[in-house]
C-alpha cells in the first residue's frame, strides 16, 4: 500500500492529525525544518502501522492507528503544556508586502496617469473659459500660445520626473507609510 492508494476521505483523517501536530509544533517555536521532519516521521509511522493491519486499510484501521498515537498536545514541551501561552506574534512589516505587487503597480500607473490627465483637463478648461469670456483676437492668441507652452513644458517636466522615480505613486506612498508606521523594521515593502 502507498500513500497514493489510500482513499481520499481516509487520507483527510491522517492529514488532519498531521496538521494538528504541526500546529502544536508551531506553538513550541520549533524551526520549519524540524517540524517537517517530525511530521514526516509521524506520517511514516502511520503508514507502517496501517501496513501491518492489512493490504487495504479501512476507516476503522485508520482510526485505530490514529488512536494508538500520542495526542498532538504531547509534542508540546513540558513548560508550555500547562500554560495558556499563545505563540508570540511578532509585529511584522510583511503585511505591507502581502499586497499583490502586480496589482499595486498597475493601480499606481493608472492612478498616476489619471491624476495628471485630470490636472491637465482642469487647467485647460479653466483657461479656455477665461478666453471665451474675454473679448478680442489678440488676447485669445496670446492665451492659447501660453496654454500650449504650459502643456508642453509641463509634460516635459513630468516625463523627466517620472524617469527618476523607482516605483509607482502608490508604491512610493506605501513605502513612506510603512517607514512611518514601523521605523524599526525598515523592511522594503515589495
Amino acid at each position, binding site marked *: 500500500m502507498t500513500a497514493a492508494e489510500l482513499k481520499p476521505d481516509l487520507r483527510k483523517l491522517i492529514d488532519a492529525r498531521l496538521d494538528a501536530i504541526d500546529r502544536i509544533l508551531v506553538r513550541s517555536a520549533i524551526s520549519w525544518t524540524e517540524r517537517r521532519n517530525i511530521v514526516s516521521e509521524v506520517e511514516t509511522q502511520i503508514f*507502517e502501522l496501517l501496513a501491518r493491519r492489512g493490504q487495504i486499510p479501512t476507516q476503522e484501521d485508520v482510526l485505530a492507528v490514529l488512536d494508538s498515537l500520542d495526542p498532538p498536545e504531547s509534542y508540546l514541551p513540558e513548560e508550555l503544556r500547562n500554560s495558556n501561552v499563545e505563540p508570540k506574534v511578532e509585529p511584522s512589516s510583511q503585511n505591507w508586502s502581502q499586497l499583490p505587487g502586480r496589482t499595486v503597480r498597475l493601480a499606481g500607473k493608472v492612478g498616476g496617469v489619471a491624476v495628471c490627465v485630470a490636472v491637465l483637463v482642469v487647467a485647460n478648461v479653466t483657461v479656455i473659459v477665461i478666453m471665451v469670456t474675454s473679448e478680442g483676437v489678440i488676447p485669445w492668441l496670446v492665451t492659447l500660445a501660453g496654454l500650449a507652452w504650459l502643456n508642453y513644458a509641463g509634460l516635459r517636466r513630468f516625463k523627466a520626473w517620472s524617469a527618476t522615480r523607482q516605483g509607482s505613486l502608490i508604491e512610493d506612498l506605501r513605502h513612506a507609510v510603512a517607514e512611518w508606521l514601523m521605523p524599526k523594521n525598515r523592511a522594503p515593502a515589495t
Partner: protein
Amino acid sequence: MQQWITQFRKGLVELCIMAALRDDEAYGYQIVEQLGRVAGLEVTESTVYPVLARLARDRCVTVRTAPSPAGPPRRYYRLSEIGRRRLQEMIGHWQSIQHSVNQLTQGALS
C-alpha cells in the same frame, strides 16, 4: 505518570537514542519501537521524533531516505562523527553521575 519520572527520563532519551544508533542505522519508527521495549524508559514517538530532528539539526546524525513498502519513504538515521564524540562524552558523564548517585543512595539506604 509522575512529573519527576518524566523529567528524569527526559534527559536520558537523547543518550538512549544515540546509543541505539551506535552500531547501525535505523529509521524513526524502528527507534521508537526499540526504545519502547526498554523497561523503565518506555518512550513514545512524541519524545523520540523531536529529539531525532534536533540531533539532525546539530549534525549528530546523518539522514538518508529510502523507499518503504509501507508508504512514505523511511528516514534512516546514522550516528555522525560529531554524534559519536557527543555519545562518548554523554556516556562518560552518565557513568560519573551514576557512580556518585549510587554512593549517595547506598549511603541513604544503609
